[in-house]
C-alpha cells in the first residue's frame, strides 16, 4: 500500500487505512484523518522532514515516520 508520505507535491490521495493503534491513531482521528479523507501534500519543510498536508481544509505538519502509518489508494 502507498502512504501519504509518498505523495508528490500537490498530489491528492484518499486515505484507505490507518496502520497504527492507540494514542497515534486517536491523534490522526483528531485531525480528521480517517478512511475516506482526502489528503494533499502541500509542502516539505526546509530540512525535508516533516511535510505539510492539507486535511479537511487545514494544514497539518506530520513527520515522515508518522506519515508512513497512513495508507492511501494508489
Amino acid at each position: 500500500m502507498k502512504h501519504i508520505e509518498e505523495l508528490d507535491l500537490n498530489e491528492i490521495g484518499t486515505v484507505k487505512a490507518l496502520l497504527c493503534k492507540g494514542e497515534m491513531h486517536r491523534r490522526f482521528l483528531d485531525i480528521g484523518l480517517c478512511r475516506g479523507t482526502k489528503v494533499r501534500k502541500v509542502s516539505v519543510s526546509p530540512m525535508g522532514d516533516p511535510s505539510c498536508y492539507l486535511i479537511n481544509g487545514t494544514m497539518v505538519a506530520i513527520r515522515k515516520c508518522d506519515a508512513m502509518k497512513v495508507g492511501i489508494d494508489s
Partner: protein
Amino acid sequence: MGRVKKSNKNKEVRVALCGNPNVGKSTLFNSLTGKRRHTGNWSGKTVDVMSARVCTEDADFIFYDIPGTYSLISHSKEEEIAVEFLCLGKIDLCVYICDATAIFRSLPLLLQIKEAVGELIVCLNFLNEAQKHDIILNKQRLSELISCPVIALNARNKRSSAALVAYLQKYKKPPRTDLRAIKYPPEIEKSASRISSIISEHTYRGVSSYFVALRLLEGNFDIANRLFDKENDRRVSSAVLEEHKRLFEMGITGEKISDMIVGAIIERARLISDEVLQEKREGSRYGRGILDKILCGKFTAYPIMALFLALCFFITLRLASYPSAWLEQLFIFLNSHIFKALTQLGASEIFISALCNGILDTLFTVIAVMLPPMAIFFPMFSLLEEAGYLPRIAYNLDRPFAACHACGKQALTMCMGLGCNAVGVSESRIIDSERERLLAILTNSFVPCNGRFPILASIGGVFVISLCGAEKFVYVALFVTLFVIAGMLMTFPVTRILSATILKGEKSSFTIELPPIRRPEICKVILISLRTKVLSVLWRAVAVAAPMGLVLFLLSYITVNGAPLMLYLSQILNPAAALIGLDGVILLSFILALPASEMVIPITVSLYSIGSSFDLSLSELLLSNGFTPVSAVCMCVFCLFHFPCSTTLITVYKETKSVKYTVLSALMPTLIGIALCAIINIVAKFAF
C-alpha cells in the same frame, strides 16, 4: 453590554465558550468581556480556563474561555479541562465556536458536546474569510441538521459580540430531549443503551448518561470515574464487563469499539458538512501560499528566521536607548529632589541614604534599563505570534529536534522563552509527551530572556567600544543576535545528551497545525501586550528590585575590617571569578541578581561605584576596572549560561513538581557556563 463588574442580584448564567483550537475563542472572550486575554494564532495557545462576568439587565453572564480541543474523548490536558467544565454541571449554557472556513473540522467536537450536554448555541466565526475563499455555508440547513441554533459572528467585532449577548438574554433553554446526535452501529447502540439505562438512575449533574455509557464502552474510565457516585461503581462496572463480553462474542474487541465510535462520529460530520457546504473548494483558503513558500522555503526559511531575530534586536536596542536615557535623567532629577525634601524634613541620615541611594536608586535603574526594551520587544513579538509565524518556526525546526529525540513544539517554547523564561516553561504544556515536555522545560533557560538582553546589549556595547573605539548599533545588534543564536544552538546538544541520559526515550509523534497567516490587528495587539505582558513583568521586577535595593545598601553600609561587606564578598569571589575570566564584582552581581536577571547591570554599576564619587557610565566603570574584550565575551557567555531567575525556577517546580528537575535546571546551565568561560579564558591567555 460590556460592563464587567462584580455581583448583582440578578440570576447568574454560566456560559462556556468552547470549540476547536485556534477558532477565536479567546478573541471572542476578549470582545465579550472587555478583558485583555492574550491571544495568538496557533493552536494550544490557551491552556487554562479564564472567566469574566458581564452584567446585563436580566442576568449576569459569566463567560468561561475553555481550552480548544478536537474531541472530548482522548486524554490530553486540554480535554480533561473541557470535560471537567462541560460535563460536571459547572455551566448552564454552551456556546460553540466554529471556524466557517473549516466546518468539517469543527463538527466532530460539536456532535460530541451535543451528545454530552444536550443543547448548545453554535457561532460561525470567520464567515467573511470563508466568503472571500468561495466557501458558502447554508446556515439554515446546518441548524436543522444539528438541531441547534446557529448564528453568524465576527469574534473580533464588539457589535457582533454584543449581539451574541442580546441573543443569550432572550435564549430559552429548550426542554431536555434525549436526541441522539450521532448514529452508531446497532451493536454499539444497543450495548450503550443498556449501560445507560443502569446509570441514568443516578443522573450525573447534567451530562447525558448515554455519553457516559459510550465512554465506558470504550474503556475510558477517566471521564466516567469523575462522573460517578462511588457506590454505584460496582454495579456499573459489572454491566460494562457484560457488554464487553457480548461485543467480544460478536468479534468486536476493545480497540475496535472506539474505532467504530469515532468512525461513526466522523461519518456523521462528513454527511453534515457535505450537505451544508454549497460549494466545495477544498483548501482554497491556502490559495495564496506565497508567504508560506518564503517563510518555509528550502533556502529562505533560516535566513528569514535569523533576519527576524536580528531585526527585532536592532529595532529594540536602537529605539530603546532614547527613552532609557530620558528615564534615567528623569529619575536622577526625582531622586535628588526626594533627597533634598527628606533632608529638609530632618529625617535620619541612614534612612535617607537607605531610601535614596539604596531602594530608589536600584528601582529607578531597573525601570530605566528594562522598561523601554520590553515595551518594544513584547509587542513586536506578539505581532509575529498573532500573524501565525510561530508554528512555522516549529515546522522548520522539527527535524533537528527530532534528531535530538525531542518535539518540534520545543521551538515554540523557546520563542516564548525569548520573552520570559518563566512563560516559556509554563507554555511547555503544549507538548503532549511527558518526557519531551521535561526536555523543553529543562533547556528553556538557554534562550536568553528579555531581562538578559540589556546585559548582552550593554556588554556588547562595551565590547564594540573597546574594539572599534565608538559604539555602533549595527554591531551591537549583531553581537546580541550572535549570542542569542549561540544560546539557542546550545539547546540541541544539551537536549540530545539529556535524552540519552536522564530523560531516556525515543521521540514520540509530532503533528502541528499551521494556521493560515492572518493580518494581526496591530493596534489591539500592541495595546494588549503592553497592558498584560509588559506590566506584569515590570511589576515583578519592581517588586524584586525594591528589597534588593535595600540589600545592596546594607551590603555597602555594613563594614568588615573597615571595608564594605560587598567589597569583602567580591574579594572572596575574586579568585574563582578570575578562572572564568570575570571578576568578583561581576560574579557577585550575577548571584545577587537571582531574583531578576535585569538586576545584573544595575548591581554591577552600584558595586563598582562604591567609594568613587563620580557618576561614571557603565563602559567607563568597566574599562577602568580592567575589563577586556575577553572578559566581555566571558561575561556574555556566563549571562547566556547560568542559573535562571528565581521566578523561572519556581515555575519549573510548579510544572514538574520535582525538586530534582528544578535543581537540574539551575545547575546544568551554570556548569556549562563555567566550563565554557574557563575554556575561553585559558585559550585567550595562550593566544594573546
